[in-house]
Each structure stands twice: as structure tokens, then as C-alpha cells.
């Protein structure tokens, strides 16, 4: 399938300021990254704070000039076709806000006009999107008076009002409580299913990215260090977590784990052991041979978070 967004060797270097008082050091925020996004795909952009996620999004929107590299949307160069391309690309962020004193409906009306939604269908389109994002009852409220979750839904509604082909979402669930974040994730997935849009999704919430994305790019210090499905990335981590409730010979278990240099954590009778997936059977056999008895066992398979933490440790 052909890519509708193609990024080639994109680089952003922030150079020192001109004024001596505000002098800063040269800093490479994004370093020669290349990737593509295909039709209908949700591509996750994962990285710690300062990894270059937001910088990349800003360059993809044209609000930040790249130092070098190219961006192609729909096989057209973004540098020379920015306005034409932005008619088919939209954006929402958990950090940016819509004008606070305008009502939700007024804000969406301004945005719809910017996207050239025809006057005859503008009101219907706004009504539909208000209902679809659960904002109908809030339509006449000032945007500044909304809760964080409602405000995020409004910025998402803004992103979908133009029926875009690509939506760039920059940490849309940042600063939301878990319930609101889940609500927003469901909205995004529902919209993606109904509208078949391609989504580039940045986050530093591993579970969120694993849940939502078809493919994940992991950014570290401005460089892409992994590009795969969340499942494949997690699979590349062999460590699993074995949880045991020990009912007999806890001290023997501790001695054994110390002898074998196996990492573990103890909370009263509950022990969490980090062990290679392939060595779990051997571990359980050893416990049985030492007459160590447990009443409950559960095994957590490696997750994307484990992969990410592994990378962080290897730094």
C-alpha cells in the first residue's frame, strides 16, 4: 500500500540565540528521521519528554521549519504545497487550546470556514460532529469553561470537522484523568474506524500506544530506534514477570533467587520474579524440588513498556 505521508531524513537543529544574554547551546532535536504512514493506519510516536515527538509534529504542520530533510504528503512536497496539503491534514494537541471566550459551536464554525466547508452544509456538519463527539449539550458553552476532558474532545472535534485524510494528534490525552483519557481514546478509535483516516499519534503512555496503534516508532534523542508493531516490539523482550503467593518456605525461595542472581521483589508473601520466558518452566521445577509451596501463580507477558524500559536501561 502506498504511503500518504513520507518523511525523509528530517532534521531539526536549534542553533544558539543571537543575543549574548540569552545564549543557548546548539541542540539536535530531531536527527535524520525517515518514516511513512499508510492509508487507514494509526502510527504511534513514542518517546520520553524531549525525544523529539512534538518537534516532529510541528514540522509536519509547517509551524516549525526543518533544518534539512523532506516531507511528502500524498506524493506532494510539503515545502511547496503547504496550504493545499493542510486542507486534507488536521491536528489536535492536548496542550493547545481553542479560543476560550468563543463557544464550542463558534470555534467549530470558524474552523469549518477555514477548511472551506460549504455554507450550505456547514451547520449540518457542525451539528453532526458535535453529536458525534458528545458535545451537543455543550455547544453554547464558552470553550474556556469546559473541563479538561471536554476541552480535549472539542479540539478533537476540530481536527475531524474537515473530514481529513490524515490527523496528527500530539499527546491528546496529556493532563487527562484516566477515565477521560479512556473516553478520548475510544473517540479516536471510533472516528478512525468510521472515517478511515490515517492517524499519527504521539504519546509517552506505553499502554495507550500499544492499545491504539497499528505500528509504533520509538524516538530516542531525536532518532528513531524502533519501527514495528507494538506486539512485535514487546515480543522482542524475553523477560516475563512471575507472581507467586508463597505459603511454605519463603526463606528458601529468597536464598535460591539470590544464589541464581534472579531479580525479584517481595511484598509479605507475594513475590514478583523477573525471568526469561523460556526459563519459567525450569524455575517452577526448581521450586518444586526445594519443596517451596505457592497457592497462586500468575505470569505477566512482556509489554511495550518493558521494551521501552529495556531501551532506557541500555542508555
Amino acid at each position, binding site marked *: 500500500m502506498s504511503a500518504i505521508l513520507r518523511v525523509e531524513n528530517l532534521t531539526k537543529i536549534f542553533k544558539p540565540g543571537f543575543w549574548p544574554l540569552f545564549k543557548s547551546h546548539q541542540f539536535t532535536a530531531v536527527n535524520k528521521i525517515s518514516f511513512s504512514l499508510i492509508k487507514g493506519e494509526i502510527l504511534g510516536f513514542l518517546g520520553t519528554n524531549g525525544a523529539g515527538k512534538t518537534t516532529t509534529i510541528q514540522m509536519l504542520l509547517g*509551524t*516549525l521549519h526543518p533544518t534539512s530533510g523532506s516531507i511528502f504528503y500524498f506524493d506532494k512536497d510539503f515545502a511547496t504545497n503547504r496550504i493545499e496539503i*493542510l486542507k486534507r491534514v*488536521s491536528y489536535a*494537541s492536548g496542550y493547545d*487550546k*481553542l*479560543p476560550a471566550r*468563543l463557544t464550542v459551536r463558534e470555534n467549530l464554525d470558524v474552523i469549518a470556514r*477555514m477548511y472551506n466547508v460549504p455554507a450550505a452544509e456547514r451547520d449540518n456538519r457542525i451539528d453532526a460532529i458535535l453529536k458525534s463527539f458528545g458535545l451537543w449539550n455543550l455547544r453554547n458553552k464558552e470553550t474556556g469553561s469546559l473541563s479538561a476532558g471536554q476541552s480535549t474532545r472539542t479540539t478533537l472535534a476540530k481536527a475531524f470537522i474537515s473530514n481529513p485524510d490524515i490527523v496528527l494528534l500530539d499527546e491528546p490525552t496529556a493532563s487527562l484523568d484516566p477515565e477521560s483519557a479512556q473516553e478520548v481514546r475510544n473517540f479516536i478509535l471510533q472516528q478512525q474506524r468510521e472515517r478511515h483516516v490515517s492517524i499519527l499519534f504521539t504519546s509517552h503512555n506505553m499502554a495507550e500506544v500499544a492499545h491504539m496503534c497499528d505500528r509504533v516508532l520509538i524516538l530516542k534523542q531525536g532518532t528513531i530506534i524502533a519501527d514495528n508493531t507494538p506486539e512485535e516490539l514487546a515480543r522482542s523482550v524475553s523477560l516475563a514477570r512471575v507472581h507467586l503467593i508463597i505459603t511454605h518456605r519463603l526463606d528458601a525461595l529468597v536464598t535460591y533467587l539470590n544464589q541464581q542472581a534472579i531479580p525479584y521483589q517481595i511484598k509479605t508473601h507475594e513475590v514478583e520474579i523477573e525471568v526469561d520466558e523460556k526459563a519459567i518452566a525450569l524455575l517452577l521445577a526448581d521450586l518444586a524440588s526445594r519443596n517451596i509451596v505457592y497457592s497462586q501463580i500468575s505470569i505477566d507477558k512482556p509489554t511495550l513498556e518493558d521494551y521501552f524500559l529495556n531501551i532506557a536501561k541500555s542508555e
Partner: protein
Amino acid sequence: MEFTHCWAVVLRHARLWMRDVNLILVTLYWPLLDVLIWGFIGSWMQRNQNTSADYTAICLFAILLWQTTARSSIIVASTFIEEIMANNLVNLFSLPLRISEWISGVILFSSILISFTNLYCMGLIYLFYNIPVFKMLWVTLLFAPPLFLSGIALGFFCLQIIVSLGKRAQELAFILSWFFAPLCGAFYPLDILPEWIQQISYCFPMAYAFEGMRNYMIHSINPANYIIISYALSAVYLAVAVALFIFFFNRTKIKGLARLSD
């Protein structure tokens, strides 16, 4: 350039203006205060002058015309500052909105607001001082357009500094226009000023408009030359100011528009 986009910019700011009590007060209160103060100063001057010139009208026209410059400058600058303060810059300029469309929208919005303010001032002047509406309209139509263009130019000069320095430079928007009030002889003839300041004053289009207005009102001198020079200079200043603003706006994208809100 698409008019729909320009109109969307107008609607965005007009809706804010109509909803914000502070902005409504600023639009209605200060002109009222200015009309009262300068009208009574004019009446007092009139009483102490042995002349046929109508100093009340001259003072009132001066404040009416000066407001055209100062307010249009502030409106232009505050529309951009509003986007910075609302953390809306990245949202706005990630839309398919050309900078030329935003500029046109802001100028259109300013012209609507200034027309409203001027009509409101004329109503007050008629109410308090009984100066004929036709005379006010005539003087405004003659002298206000180049002053409006000058104000817009001043606004964009402010904005080029704000897009370079961010919101810490926002006070400039309110300082800069008033800085020109003493220089361009809004409230007194330029020959009152020291010679060297006069030389500077004649570099500004506002000076010609105000001199033209006073000469027309006091000596009935045909103001055509003053108006032509004022138009020509303000057009040049506006073109330079807008070009510089676009240059600095694009240049600020090297560090990113988002940083302006920091």
C-alpha cells in the same frame, strides 16, 4: 487568497469582542472620555481666542482622527497577542490559512471596528457639542483613511517585534502608537515643536493629515496636497511594515511558532 478565510478571521475576533465586557468597555468608555475632555478643552480655548476658527471642533476632530490611528494600531497588535495568550497560534497556523489571509482579515476587522468607533464618537460629539454630522463625516472621510493606514502600519511594526520576542514584548503594542502622538502633531500645530523634531515629524504620514485638517478648519486651505502626501507615505509605511512582519513571521518558524506562547 480566499475571502472565506479572511472572514473567518474577522468572525473569530468579532465574536470575542462582542462577548468580552472589558473589550466593549474599552471601545465605548475611552472614546466617551476623550470626547468629553477634548471637547471641553476646545470650548475653553474658544472662549479665550478672538478668532472665527472653531477650536471646539478642531480639538474634537483631532481626537477623533488620532483615535483612528491609535486604535487601529492597537487592534492589529492585540489580535495577534490574543492568539499568543490563548495558546492558539499553532492551531491557527496549522489550518490552511495563508498569512496574507490572516493579515487581510485583521485589517478588515480593524476597519469595521474603527468605523463603528468613529460613528460612535460622531454621535457623542453631535450629542454634546451639536457639531453638524455632515461636517464631521466630510472631515473623517477626507483625513481618516490615511490615518487608518498609518495605524495599521504601526500595528504591524509592533507585531514584527512581538513575533521575534514573543509575549514579553506585548506592552509595545500599547506604547508605540502613543509614542507618535506628540511627534505627529495630533493636538497642536507642528510649528510649536523644536525645528529638529519638526524634521522628524514630517517623515510620518500622520503629521500631514493633522496639519491638513487644521489648515482646512482654521484657514480653509485646500487639504489636497496634505492628503495626497499622507496617503502616499502611509501606503509606503504599510507595505514596508507588512513585508517586515511576513519576513519576521516566517523567520520565527525557524524556532517554531509554539515558542511565542512560552
